[in-house]
């Protein structure tokens, strides 16, 4: 039997590029699957993103190395079929019809959580569905001072037990956000600062609190690993109507509403409570913001929203008594 001839592996550059592309692709694939099925982790997502950039580079090199056969493919009819499939799939995934949403909803990564904000004359409804078994709906019923033609600025975010911002559900990127939503802006800055100080470790106990209940990962609160001891967290709303004068005050301050969510004692419906208004404090040059009880300086701003109702549909979690995790009876 004749000995099989050794395949021609080409130059070192070809071999190197091909092998490196294949190996980094394995990392990309595994980290991609992990990023989908696991709760959000900066380590996994970071690995996936940066290896992805490397793969892009390697693929370009690979294309350069194989430009001739590629040109041949491009002249075949198959190119049109593959192009249609690619564009079609991308379009469907981007548009997110029901079945696609369901598939995405299987992800435990709260990064791709489904968020939706709707407004009407009666109010504003915000949906946040980080998991098919954990759907949050915040209904803000508008009050007498609400003007649909000139709606107030609103930010909605989650805070951990140490009152650190952990996720913005609804915010604003406009340049005057700092002025009109100062408390949310401050909370975001503190969050970014704490993240930076932690060096990327999202379990920032030393920065946020001496307790071990202050993870910055929303998944730790919504889909906790330790289902027997879920950690409470807060949903906070900042609302501000621009230039709403009241008595001698040319512009009333923003108002802060909040509700604590404790999955150990699951409640389907919870009302938002008025906390007060934020005020900047500078002590030895260090900025902080405190909330003050609403006093005579606040008038019509109290009527921007009539009430805020948070509904959490925990699916099977709630029927299991709250202390039991998803799917467990």
């Amino acid at each position, binding site marked *: 039997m004749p000995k099989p001839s050794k395949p021609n592996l080409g130059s070192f550059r070809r071999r190197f590029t091909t092998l490196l592309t294949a190996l980094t692709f394995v990392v990309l694939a595994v980290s991609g699957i992990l990023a989908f099925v696991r709760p959000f982790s900066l380590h996994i997502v970071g690995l996936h993103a940066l290896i992805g950039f490397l793969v892009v580079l390697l693929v370009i090199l690979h294309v350069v190395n194989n430009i001739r056969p590629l040109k041949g493919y491009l002249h075949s009819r198959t190119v049109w079929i593959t192009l249609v499939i690619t564009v079609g799939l991308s379009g469907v995934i981007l548009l997110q019809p029901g079945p696609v949403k369901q598939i995405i909803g299987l992800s435990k990564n709260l990064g791709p959580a489904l968020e939706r904000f709707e407004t009407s004359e009666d109010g504003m409804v915000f949906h946040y569905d980080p998991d098919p078994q954990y759907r949050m709906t915040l209904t803000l019923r508008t009050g007498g001072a609400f003007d649909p033609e000139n709606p107030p600025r609103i930010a909605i975010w989650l805070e951990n037990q140490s*009152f650190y911002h952990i996720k913005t559900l609804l915010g604003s990127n406009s340049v005057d956000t700092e002025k009109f939503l100062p408390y949310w802006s401050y909370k975001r800055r503190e969050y970014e600062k704490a993240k930076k100080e932690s060096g990327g470790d999202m379990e920032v106990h030393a920065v946020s609190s001496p307790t071990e209940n202050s993870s910055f990962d929303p998944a730790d609160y919504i889909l906790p690993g330790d289902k027997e001891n879920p950690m409470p967290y807060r949903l906070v709303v900042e609302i501000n109507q621009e230039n709403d004068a009241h008595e001698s005050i040319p512009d009333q301050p923003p108002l802060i509403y909040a509700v604590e969510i404790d999955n150990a004692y699951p409640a389907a419906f919870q009302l938002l*409570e*008025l*906390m*007060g208004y934020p005020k900047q404090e500078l002590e030895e040059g260090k900025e902080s913001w405190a*909330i*003050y*009880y609403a006093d005579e300086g606040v008038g019509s701003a109290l009527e921007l929203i009539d009430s805020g109702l948070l509904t959490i549909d925990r699916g099977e979690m709630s029927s299991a008594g709250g202390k039991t995790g998803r799917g467990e009876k």
Partner: protein
Amino acid sequence: MKDTDQSTARRKFLQQSILGSAGAGLAIASTTHVAVGADEKENHEPELATEVDVLVVGGGTAGTIAAIQAGRAGASTLILERNSQLGGTMTTGGVAFPGLFDAWGKQIIAGIGWELVKESVELDGGKFPDFAKVPQRHWQNQIYVNQFLYAILAEEKCEAVGVQIAYYEFPQSIAETPDGWQVDCVGFGTRRRVLCKQIIDCSGGAEVVGMLGFPRLREEERQPGSMLFKIGGGHLPGREQVHRLYVHGADSTNSRTATLANVTGRRSVLAKVRKEKKQLMHLQPETGFRESYRIVGETMVTVNDYTSGKRFDDAISNAFYPVDLHTKSGVKPKPLKPGTVPTIPLGALIPKGSRNIIVAGRSVCSDRLANSGLRVQASCMGMGQAAGVAATLAAKNNTTPFEVSLQQIHQVLRDHDAIVPGDA
């Protein structure tokens, strides 16, 4: 107030000489007697007889306020304290950060307790929290008090209204009399018979109520106590909290269990010092106890009453604190809902079926979870002041505290700067 020496004429003379100066100076009854009777032959008859309108048993957080209030309202008053100073948990226990006097941006507890705290802080150059600011954590509105100043100011306020202080004394037996009570008390080198119209039991564990045979409630396992200390850097009283170690099983039921708690607490501190190799800068002389006996009262405050902020018909003071049950694994305070201000009814201070006795402090009739919020210092001060008023009015009107007109109690409380539920 009437004191009669039953031994020698010489002792009577000295006793009266010293007590005669009580209006101008502090009367330290037991110390006085030790000086006079140190060479007396042992016998079991009381050496002193003291006749007062109101006897306050326990000079702790509630008792101190109750005694000052009774004195200010015109009752001759004697306060027994088995330790060496007034203030209890705040001074001897070192929990010198009382709270909570405010709720939802308003002050809800004031009166004599607040006056003492305020004076202590002002004299010490300390700071008050801004009650207009929403605290992120409930303890941010606790007030740092210099425990040493507080104890001295409390004595000064007692002295100012003629309240007689008897340190190192406690009741040994009690008998009912047509006019009230005969209470035989002991201290080292002292045997005193007190005749009083009303007793305010502020012993922390409703000890007088127990001696009288009224039923009391107690949990199988008490919440842990805390031993307060400071290692490493120096301690700045009135400016900071100190270090704390749980003393599991701490039980203030009797001298034996309290001894065990203190020895255990100090042993834990020693272990920490050895482990961390730091200098021990401060150590409280006694464990801070959280829980003991509670009375079975005419009214029980349930956790539902507490968390819903029920306004009792006979409410006499406000309270405010999260439901705060400490367990072996720590504590997870459950804050009250915005706007909620619990109240304390007079009936919760009256042992069921009793006459001429009222309690104040953590032995208030309440279920365990309600008590975990009610037991804190500001609330106990509010109860103490109300009990002082009720006992004084009862003594003046020859009735029992539960039968005193609520309107009258409220009026006297207002006259002495207390905040009556509904007023804040």
